[in-house]
């Protein structure tokens, strides 16, 4: 391949991609990091203030902590339910059920609906007054609840919507992993008299440890990106009680125009994302034996 590798050809091929990547990804991250260390007001001279913006977030901003707690609730409830539920669904849809292929396609459906539209759809499920959920609850004689717009339940409601939109996606990855499992081990255990539950518990799950890790990390990454749901369901309210980290970053930066603190939250989100992705990459490396 040396014949086609003149230096100018290499540069020509690399140049446009690297320009876009550096200009719109790398430079923005550096710029955000710099702004997070200043009192930049959008115009005029910015002054270096060190870690002041970070300290203020941690010490004096109750909304920031609320956003951290909400994100954590969505993470624990959403991912905690999604991983076992989507694995169970993959096992279920692997049975020889009539129309299993079509059912798998339907389950994946929510994953391609635009997040902003998912938010709008769920307003009409979760809204305390006009939503489907409270109507169904009242029809069977149970009390309704203020799923969104109240003081406490919104993060749980957002976790529910997140579960709805991700279960087919997670199920598909588990399903692909199950298809790769060698049949001989499970068959051998079947011959030895293992029950279906024992086969899943002691053979399938241990053999799919890597798939479990991949699904978990992907879902955690996706939780960190939940923004449109908050935007449509509550707008972060009442008084920032239902913000996630990124929705609060959006509010601080673009509505309040506090660029320093806004970028400090953005950098925190970035660092969390980097840690998660780092874990993901090491895992994939180990999986391929690199």
């Amino acid at each position, binding site marked *: 391949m040396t014949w086609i590798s003149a230096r100018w050809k290499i540069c020509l091929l690399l140049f*446009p991609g690297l320009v876009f990547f550096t200009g719109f*990804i*790398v430079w923005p991250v550096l710029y955000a990091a710099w702004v997070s260390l200043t009192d930049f007001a959008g115009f005029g001279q910015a002054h270096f203030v060190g870690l002041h913006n970070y300290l203020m977030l941690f010490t004096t901003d109750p909304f920031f902590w609320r956003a951290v707690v909400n994100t954590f609730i969505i993470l624990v409830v959403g991912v905690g339910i999604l991983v076992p539920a989507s694995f169970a669904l993959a096992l279920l849809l692997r049975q020889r059920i009539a129309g299993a292929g079509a059912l798998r396609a339907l389950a994946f459906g929510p994953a*391609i609906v635009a997040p902003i539209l998912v938010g709008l759809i769920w307003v009409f499920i979760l809204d305390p007054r006009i939503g489907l959920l409270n109507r169904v609850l009242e029809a069977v004689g149970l009390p309704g609840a203020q799923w969104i717009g109240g003081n406490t339940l919104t993060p749980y409601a957002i976790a529910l919507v997140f579960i709805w939109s991700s279960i087919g996606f997670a199920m598909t990855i588990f399903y692909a992993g199950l298809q790769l499992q060698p049949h001989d081990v499970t068959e051998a255990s079947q011959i030895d008299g293992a029950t279906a539950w024992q086969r899943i518990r002691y053979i399938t799950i241990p053999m799919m440890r890597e798939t479990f890790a991949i699904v978990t990390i992907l879902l955690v990454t996706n939780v960190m990106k939940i923004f449109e749901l908050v935007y449509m369901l509550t707008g972060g309210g009442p008084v920032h009680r239902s913000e996630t980290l990124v929705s609060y970053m959006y509010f601080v*930066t673009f509505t309040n125009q506090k660029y320093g603190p806004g970028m400090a939250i953005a950098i925190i989100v970035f660092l969390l*994302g980097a840690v998660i992705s780092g874990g993901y990459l090491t895992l994939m490396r180990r999986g391929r034996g690199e």
Partner: protein
Amino acid sequence: MTTISGFENGLGRQVAPPRRSPLTPRTRPGRARRSLWAAGIAAYIVIFLIVLPLLWIVLLSFQPSDRILGNPWSLNTLTIDNYTRAIKQLPLVRMYANTILIALVSVTVGAVVSFMASFALTRMVFRRPRLQSALRVYVLAGLAVPVYVLLFPVYRIDLTLGVFGTYLSVILPYIAVSIPFNTLLLTGFLREFPAELEEAAIIDGAGLWRLCRAIVLPVMRPVIATILIFNVVYVFNEFPFVSILINNPQLATVSLAVSRFQGQYSVDYGGMMAAATLVLVPQLAIYAMLQRQVIAGLTAGAVKG
């Protein structure tokens, strides 16, 4: 338990049971059939619950708004008035045209520049091989950057470049955001695919352009389809960037238009649901047609990594 031991010969090799297809479950037939029935019913219930919210939206879209507040279940009040109103109010053609234009340009340019870079990063011979792998790691590190960090900086860059509020204001970041993922899949493919065919073509006198067009691109068609689908779905569904960078309603994409439904329709819930259905149905129809490719495209990062 069934008498499994009878199916094994002395060497421990398994022998097919007589007059039974290998697909038949080896537990008691009656019990197996019953548990398969139970699994089937459970599966259908779960999938029904997943589809339910979408059905609810479609039902509401055919109800007059006062019915939605009162009794939305009755089926004899169904009407298509909501749709006539929604179509009149909604610049459907405009918002689809905007989205398609933005998607077409950003996805094409993103794929082309990623392919060029990926080819150089895997096939060309650098004088310093260290530099080559370092550049690949540099680009792939972009996978770890959440787009939310980029919003404000890109807004400033767009102002500086004088493209704020135009199509280019979102096209440029969309191209950039697609590069790390594209490079991951393209370099992953090229590294595993042997270069012999390409070497033969070069010996036969093919230049770089002919080599890529006639030899490399044809074998890469499936990966390229995967990245195109992934990127098109991303651009169609993207909201944070457009919400900040596009302020002219004339340039609004589908996502941006949907975000304004609540303000636009206020308490005209029927109209809002009709508008939502008009966005939802084409998307689901395209998904139904390209189901296999779409699922492969959206899970490629997880499955192939």
